[in-house]
């Protein structure tokens, strides 16, 4: 099948449709508006529902309702809109419902700006809403990878009956790359015996996050924690790019990882042993990727489009056995290869303070 040139945001939309998603509730915000724009056209073509809500608060509650009724459902937004959704996300986790939430991150805090950033890492991986919860966070780095990951996003949401977040940034949403869409497959959505589908005389299905008796809520929390532990065990994903023999290992995700790959390429051409670990799941963080590297790598350098958030997970994953340095640009600015290369040089020369 021929390749087509597609924007990242459009690829999310097409990937979702191909994964069997037929319900999208959203509200426009740059830099993800091409996604609702695409689905406004595409959903009616496949008999799906596209609805622009009056706010992000309404959006996430529509997702909650649709998921509770058994739909394969998605919403998307960027920073400020995702913040508005946090209460609803917590409810969806509490009620154990599957859905996909897309955050094409932009500069913050507050209204910030519309330029690309990765500064919602804490919010995504620590649970931006209230209560004791986790969710799988996927971080693609190319338009093709978006297409490939969308099916997984919905399947993982179903497997664990938990929201899955796809975390990108403005660059990834706006850039165009060739993609191979492949054949459209028939999608099998797993049965949802728990869904609230009307009074049909069977057992009662209650979609709810209220456990008013503390003994009951504790049991619920322990059951949820077992699910999160299973995710941590089974779902860590990462790309290892020449890290096995690297003296210095870069750690970056999404667009920052693309920039770092260019730096690794340059270093390798010059004979410097530099590699990259690119987390594909921000949560669960791919701790497993770091275990063998503790025997081979002398330094780690985390590169982010923030003031340093994932770097804390890298320090945990390396148990601080090795120095973990940080380089970041923020506020919508991008790290450029030349500057990351300079930071690498400095560390290799032994001149960088932790």
């Amino acid at each position, binding site marked *: 099948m021929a390749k087509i040139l597609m924007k990242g945001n459009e690829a999310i939309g097409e990937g979702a449709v191909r994964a069997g998603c037929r319900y999208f509730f959203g509200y426009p915000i740059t*830099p993800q508006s091409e996604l609702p724009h695409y689905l406004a056209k595409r959903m009616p073509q496949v008999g799906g529902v596209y609805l622009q809500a009056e706010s992000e608060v309404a959006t996430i509650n529509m997702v909650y309702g649709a998921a509770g009724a058994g739909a394969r459902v998605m919403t998307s937004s960027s920073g400020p809109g995702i913040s508005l959704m946090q209460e609803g996300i917590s409810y969806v986790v509490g009620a154990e419902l599957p859905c996909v939430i897309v955050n094409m991150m932009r500069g913050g805090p507050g209204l910030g700006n519309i330029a690309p950033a990765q500064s919602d890492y804490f919010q995504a991986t620590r649970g931006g809403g209230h209560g004791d919860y986790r969710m799988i966070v996927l971080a693609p780095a190319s338009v093709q990878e978006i297409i490939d990951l969308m099916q997984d996003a919905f399947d993982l949401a179903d497997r664990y009956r938990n929201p899955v977040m796809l975390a990108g940034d403005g*660059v990834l949403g706006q850039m165009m790359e060739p993609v191979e869409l492949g054949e459209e497959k028939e999608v099998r959505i797993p049965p949802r015996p728990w869904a609230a589908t009307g009074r049909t005389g069977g057992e009662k299905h209650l979609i709810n996050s209220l456990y008013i008796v503390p003994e009951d809520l504790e049991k619920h929390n322990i059951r949820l924690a077992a699910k999160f532990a299973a995710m941590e065990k089974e779902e860590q994903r990462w790309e290892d790019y020449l890290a096995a023999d690297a003296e210095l290992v870069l750690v970056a995700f999404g667009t920052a990882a693309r*920039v770092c790959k260019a730096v690794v390429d340059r270093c390798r051409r010059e004979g410097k042993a530099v590699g990259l670990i690119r987390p594909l799941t921000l949560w669960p963080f791919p701790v497993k990727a770091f275990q063998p590297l503790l025997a081979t790598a002398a330094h780690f350098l985390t590169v982010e489009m923030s003031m340093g958030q994932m770097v804390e997970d890298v320090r945990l994953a390396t148990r601080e056995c090795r120095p973990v340095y940080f380089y970041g640009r923020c506020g919508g600015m991008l790290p*450029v*290869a030349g500057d990351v290369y300079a930071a690498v040089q400095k560390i290799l020369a032994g001149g960088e303070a932790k």
Partner: protein
Amino acid sequence: MFQAILIAGFGGQGVLSTGQLLAYAGMLEGRHVAWIPSYGPEMRGGTANCGVTIADRPISSPVVSEPTTLIAMNRPSLEKFEPDVQPGGLILVNSSLIDIKARRTDVRVEYIKANELAEEIGNSKVANNIILGALLEITGVVSIDAVEESLRKVLPAHHHDLIPVNRRALELGRELMREKGTEKR
């Protein structure tokens, strides 16, 4: 082959679509390509630029921070991005709208009165493709045929009558560089 091309100008000058055309042509020729816009809150009249990478190996970073070629469609773009061009690179200046010269001496600079030339061939909107034609001649990054093929795919059918004048613009750019006796690099 690795070309990282930065195209910059005013919003409304067709900077983003010219970049898409180039990326599309690269894809048709089987290259790895990436297109990345700077997106601002402005519409027409604001600044706009996009980076296009075309390579024969997978593209590590789509971010064009050190272009091999800069196409400057207006003066602020030349002033802003000239320092970033790689040594030995290329700057194509739309001298219809830019009344200053580039300062760099370690890059090749070509001045093209694209707007006047576009008027001369009967359509002021094809200025970009005159410069694109010059780029193709100097760098050989894609063929004119691939760009024409891309136009056919990107333009809706009711605009296909514009393809011949666009082709003429590409060829005019190519001729301008040939007249200078340039060699492909």
